[in-house]
């Protein structure tokens, strides 16, 4: 038996050595590239490398909402304060069981209209439509039969009057300059079909008129760890993928898309939980198959503030949902893998997401079980293992902190000394504990999969700290 275990463990050792070298190299490269890119952008802003304020790309903001009566009015109010001229807001109530639509209708004294909807993408039928032109920009509320978030977004796209649309969550707040910043790549580069914004966590951040009034790390430890995690993933890997037009994810909380291309590609997939990722992967596939010159970009200075789950229960729900969405998107577009037609999107982006995102929970759980097995058969050097684990934790923490402080510095934000110390400790905690807990949660995400297939993701909502 020992004769079999020994070569097995050696094989596992070699696999993990390659796996971890690959991951560490990627993480290091992405943080270095991300930080230097942020510094470059900061320098550009300092030296007035900005486009004048009077170029406006017309945008429709689609706000899909399901049982959002607590936050939706504040969200619309915040959208009306954006520093941009040419946009409209469409709130799509996806058959809520609460008063989502009526809250908005009452708050803005809206009127019913018989508006014809050009149904270019299939979606559930509308029940009623309200409009008003009394607000700064046109505001529309469409109440439709329940069909899921993707279905609500498709309705918003069908009703959009402008050539570009933004999808966002009903519990998020866009920063005052976010529309101007997210449209800049369209003017900078040829054939931009989608632009991702930067999602930041708003827990304990005070916003006034869509501007940050005071910034601090959330008091809640689970939310605070997610701040570090978001910085690492948003500011590091996404910037790196952006360098070779290889972004596979634009967060559903804030992304801009060219309407005609999205319609031509078929809109949001109503049968996928991760409709945001699926759309981006689909756009890559659509454009490459049709030999279109296209660009999917990332605007690091277009900021959306959103709430992070503050309980482990909500966090687990969210991550399970994300993992299922990732699986569905990757499975649906599996032909991209190792397909030369898709270039670096195939060989780097898709492969990275497959190995280090989709399969990583299983690989990590397998790794822990192997360590236990090796310990039981006394084939492991415990002091070396502990040292190796510590080096891994410190390495990961340093990179997380680099991403965190780069973002703080380049956004002209200030954190207190206490928050800086807190960030250092939480980084270690996140790498050593939270990561493994979430790996387990993600690994178990397929349990009960069929049941939850088309439900809206729900987490505990709080009133947005917005004035």
């Amino acid at each position, binding site marked *: 038996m020992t004769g079999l275990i020994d070569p097995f463990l050696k094989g596992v050792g070699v696999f993990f050595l390659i796996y971890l070298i690959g991951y560490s190299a990627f993480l290091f490269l992405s943080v270095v590239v991300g930080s230097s890119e942020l510094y*470059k952008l900061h*320098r*550009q802003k300092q*030296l*007035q*490398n*900005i*486009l*004048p304020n*009077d*170029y406006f*790309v017309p945008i429709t903001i689609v706000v899909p909402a399901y049982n959002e009566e607590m936050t939706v009015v504040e969200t619309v109010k915040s959208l009306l304060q954006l520093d941009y001229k040419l946009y409209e807001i469409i709130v799509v109530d996806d058959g809520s069981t609460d008063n989502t639509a009526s809250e908005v209708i009452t708050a803005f*004294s809206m*009127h019913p*209209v*018989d*508006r*014809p909807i*050009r149904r270019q993408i299939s979606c559930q039928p509308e029940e009623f439509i309200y*409009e*008003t*032109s*009394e607000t700064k920009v046109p505001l529309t509320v469409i109440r439709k039969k329940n069909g899921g978030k993707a279905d609500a977004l498709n309705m918003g796209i069908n009703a959009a009057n402008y050539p570009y649309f933004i999808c966002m969550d009903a519990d998020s707040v866009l920063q005052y300059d976010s529309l101007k910043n997210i449209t800049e790549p*369209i*003017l*900078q*580069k*040829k054939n931009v079909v989608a632009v991702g914004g930067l999602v930041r966590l708003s827990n304990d951040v005070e916003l006034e008129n869509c501007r940050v009034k005071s910034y601090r790390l959330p008091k809640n430890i689970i939310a605070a760890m997610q701040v570090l995690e978001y910085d690492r993933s948003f500011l590091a890997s996404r910037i790196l993928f952006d360098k070779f037009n290889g972004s596979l994810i634009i967060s559903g909380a804030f992304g801009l898309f060219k309407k005609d291309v999205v319609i031509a590609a078929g809109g949001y997939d109503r049968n996928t939980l991760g409709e945001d990722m699926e759309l981006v992967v689909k756009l890559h596939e659509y454009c490459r198959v049709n030999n279109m010159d296209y660009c999917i970009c990332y605007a690091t200075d277009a900021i959306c503030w959103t709430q992070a789950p503050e309980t482990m229960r909500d966090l687990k729900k969210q991550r399970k949902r994300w993992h299922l969405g990732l699986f569905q998107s990757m499975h649906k577009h599996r032909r991209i893998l190792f397909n030369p037609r898709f270039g670096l999107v195939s060989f780097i982006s898709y492969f990275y997401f497959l190995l280090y995102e989709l399969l990583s929970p299983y690989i990590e759980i397998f790794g822990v079980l192997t360590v236990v097995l090796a310990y039981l058969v006394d084939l492991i050097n415990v002091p070396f293992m502990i040292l190796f684990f510590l080096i891994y934790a410190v390495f990961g923490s340093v990179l997380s902190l680099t991403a965190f402080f780069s973002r703080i510095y380049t956004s002209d934000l200030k954190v207190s000394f206490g928050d800086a110390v807190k960030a250092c400790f939480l980084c270690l905690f996140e790498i050593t504990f939270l990561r493994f807990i979430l790996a387990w949660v993600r690994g178990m995400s397929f349990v009960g999969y069929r049941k939850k297939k088309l439900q809206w993701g729900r987490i505990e909502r709080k009133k947005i700290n917005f004035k």
Partner: protein
Amino acid sequence: MLEGAYLKDADTVKLYLSELDGVFISLTVTYSGKGRIEAAYFPYIVKKYRLISNRTFPSITGILLSLLDEPGIYCRENVMQALYTTGDSDCVVEALKRIDRSGLFYHGKLITDGLLNFIRFSSPDYCEYVFTILQNENEDDELRYSAIRYFAKYRYDGAYETLCRLSSVKDVDKWQYAAISSSALATYPGEKTVELLKHNLTCGNWYVRYNSADSLEKLGIPYPELADVLDGEDRFAAEMLQYKLKKGKLERKEATV
């Protein structure tokens, strides 16, 4: 520091800067040899403090033109903004030709909006000039769309026939002309306009129908004149017109509250 002083006393700062012409020439050379970000900052300064505003300054404009070959969009845009302040149309044309020759990407919206500001499209004094742009079929589409919008804002009877013709364009690839012209016709009331817009309501293109209905509502055409569409067999045309008429009524009601 300069920005702060400019906010306090712009005239004094401008006078101070105008006395430093020689310094700026040497700075132009220094900045143009630096990196992309620094190179873009110099034309910004020229624009912001209007260093070459309404005067000839060949040494600076020459270097600004050479900066157009820089690959960064900000440098090109800041140079164009600086050149607009000169009021020298030859210089602006030379700059656009240079961008064209370089093959570097410069978004059509930046060109058209910049030019519109430059030739002050915000006043009705340029009807004849804008009309020549509209008539020239070899002109950039974006620029011609802007010309149509100009005539939507400023009525010019000389452009009416052209707008009517463009609103009836059948080419599916040129639907934008029909849509924007249908919108512009709201500024040109008359029997012919109404007939054209009613006809355009039956167009296969959504935006043409949408804009035509919008124009008919803006023109305040009474119901009996629209009855043939509202009670007609084309359901798409009737629904669109009904929606626009009701929306217009609501907007007027909201405005009076």
